[in-house]
């Protein structure tokens, strides 16, 4: 059994230790807001926070996530930064198909937690690991700046 601390709650899982955290979240625990996109840390749809850092849960063995504080899209809005990001996402009409947006929001929140007023270059650096096939990038950029303003 592996014990996980997810969104402030404790979960036990009997998944194989090499099972990626993504599939434990989705298939074992029913936390389906975190998405599968590529399975190789190439698209960012599976981004969650591990001790506040954005990580790609599709390549992280669940055993490596034990004893860490995991935050997913389901609870990111409980922090002031996460809430500001989600509000900005709606205000800027970011989402189209929406499938990648959980990961985008997790990456954006992680950025704003360490950088209160990111430049365009900061945004490029923090967000270029997150793919959006609807190409909502213009609005993601605007929403990150809106959230930064709201938080300042």
């Amino acid at each position, binding site marked *: 059994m592996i014990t996980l601390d997810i969104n402030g709650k404790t979960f036990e899982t009997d998944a194989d230790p090499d099972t990626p955290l993504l599939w434990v979240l989705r298939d074992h625990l029913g936390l389906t807001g975190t*998405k599968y996109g590529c399975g190789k840390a190439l698209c960012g749809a599976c981004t969650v926070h591990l001790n506040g850092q954005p990580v790609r849960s599709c390549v992280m063995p669940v055993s490596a996530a034990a004893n860490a504080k995991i935050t997913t899209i389901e609870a990111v809005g409980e922090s002031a930064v996460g809430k500001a990001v989600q509000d900005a996402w709606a205000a800027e009409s970011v989402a189209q*198909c929406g499938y990648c947006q959980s990961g985008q929001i997790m990456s954006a929140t992680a950025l704003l937690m360490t950088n209160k007023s990111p430049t365009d270059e900061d945004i490029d650096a923090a967000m270029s690991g997150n*793919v959006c*096939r609807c190409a*909502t990038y213009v609005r993601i950029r605007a929403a990150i700046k809106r959230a930064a303003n709201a938080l300042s």
Partner: protein
Amino acid sequence: MSNTTEQVVEVSRRDVLKGGAALTVAFFLPARGRATDGNADAAFAPNAFVRITPDDVVTVYAKHLEMGQGVYTGLATIVAEELDADWSQVRVEGAPANAKLYNNSAFGPMQGTGGSTSIANSWDQLRKAGATARALLVTAAAQRWGVPADEITVSRGKVEHAASKRSARFGELVAEAAKLPVPKDVKLKDPSQFTLIGKDTIRVDARDKANGTAMFTQDVRFPGMLTAAVVHPPRFGAKVKSFDAAKARAVKGVKTVVAFETPVRSGVAVLATDFWTAKKAAESIAVEWDETNAFRRSSADILAEYRELAKQPGRSARSEGDVEQAFKSAARVLEAVYEFPYLAHASMEPLNCVVRIGARECEVWNGEQFQTVDQASIARLLGLPPSNVRLHQLYAGGSFGRRANPKSDYLLEAVAIAKAAGVDVPVKLVWTREQDTRAGFYRPIYVHALKAGLDKDGNLIAWRHRIVGQSIMGEAALFGPPQAIDTTSVEGASTLPYSIPNLAVELHTTKVGVPVQWWRSVGSTHTAFSTECFLDEIARATGRDPYEFRRSLLSSKHSRHLAALDLVAEKSGWKNARPKDEVWGLALHESFNSVVAQVAQLKRLGDGFKLHKVVCAVDCGLAINPNIVAMQMESGIGYGLSAALTGAITLRDGVVEQGNFDDYPVLRMNQMPAVDVYIVPSQANPTGVGEPATPVIAPALANALATATGKPVYALPLSAQGITLA
């Protein structure tokens, strides 16, 4: 607001008109996002598109798939406008499969989403649906209050009689409204009265798509559900000869391993308690393939064949004047050949679906784009009547055409697997990204050969355009026997708007063996590039400005082209001097009855360039929601740019060489230009916006590059030509 998972099932129009009691059948998914629906029995549903409950919720049934294009919001806006509902009381649910009630009138007697037709084909229908419901609510209020109906006003969900100071919310009137006869003719609003149409109402899915609660097929879970991971053949047309699944069967959590075969694909599936278990087990299976009929050609070989074909006359798709004679008399002749690769759709949500085969029915959970085709395909496989195939609609994590598969490929695969396994529990088929990329149904390879004749004054007197490639519609075989000319192979070329006295468009339709399909903007994905790049080449050769040259070739009957072109020129400042470090390119193209013009603005950075901004003008008729129109322009530009920069599926000895976002790179944040969108003011009926921006960016960008470097672009993607942008 939410995309709930409750569904109307097979409601006949009679039942609906009566406001029948049993309108909904609930099934249970993880209980999030379900609409409050306390009093279904007392619902008021005067037609198949709108239902109002005593709790004052207005539910709009969307016959089209929400795959990102904003159609749930657009459809609901039309209903809410004519109903005079308050936007906050409006919910949207995906309609069930029912070709009688929910057909796409642009497709004929079938339900489906595509061709940027959703708003256009729903416009009159949903205005009437909303206005009918409004009229009934007004009649109900007039009867209750004993006042003339024409003294009653409706605004933001409130029915009011000012003189007697009485008012009621919609929900308070539904019981009486449901008993009234439905009027045949209703008065529609004058556009000057619109309060929602033309406004940037917030999308109905904005909130749920920002907090992880929006439900995609990938998120559907049921108690006892099995997840299937598959082994696909290495080449199109290969079949399973034998397989050894001893290791897979021994894995804890694996329930069974089966071979499957559909008209599209043969393979092996592992059914397990969860995806990771199934996938790991599937990787341990050794399959021996029968490759007798497998496809074994290479992209390079296909292109070589096409280049030769392009030298020969093809079948005529359009012919005016006498091009060959005009070439003989021309003072100058220009020629160019353009090449386009296979493209995968590569939606963010790898293809997946959930099916449950019952004793006499089959249920499917899917982001459903092609209901009537999918029902028929599944019914054929299972020997059921199509109406016994029940489709539950979910959000789709993208599609770009792929989910409207003419062969129902991934759905049939799931059904074949569940059938072979002999299970009656729900089975979720999940493809890996690599399987999604390699499954075929690509935008076809095309080669275009263009030739222009100029007279001694440099006037364009002749234009010949030859296109070589597979027929998407012919291979789909859905709409009757193959036509001599597949219009989707030549659209954009055969509809060239420019006035040229001698003009010929010819087509060579090829047979290859790689499954092909419509890909966001279909024929225009290649015809916009070759026509608009060649036009610029002629402009450069004759020293003319690309904007003025296009203008000179457009007659007044192409007023929408002129309007979009003029608007993009005005807003970009085309006639002004460019900033010193910038080079711009222009392109103009009509697709799906909308006209888009774009100016791509390149900025010099060292030895290279960065695409820093795109100015886009669109004439799409009346813009229901201008913000969503802008979103679709941005999205189309990003999707088209992605293909232009790096998009290519290549085959070697029949094997697809790409699999994931490392070798099939897609556009990322740092590559996305700023986009300014301008909408041509129009009161004409709305036309498409989901696709029309897509094909314009590649030629606009290539024209800028050609202006900057003097080297025209003759093949996509740019990366294969050694061109990368900063």
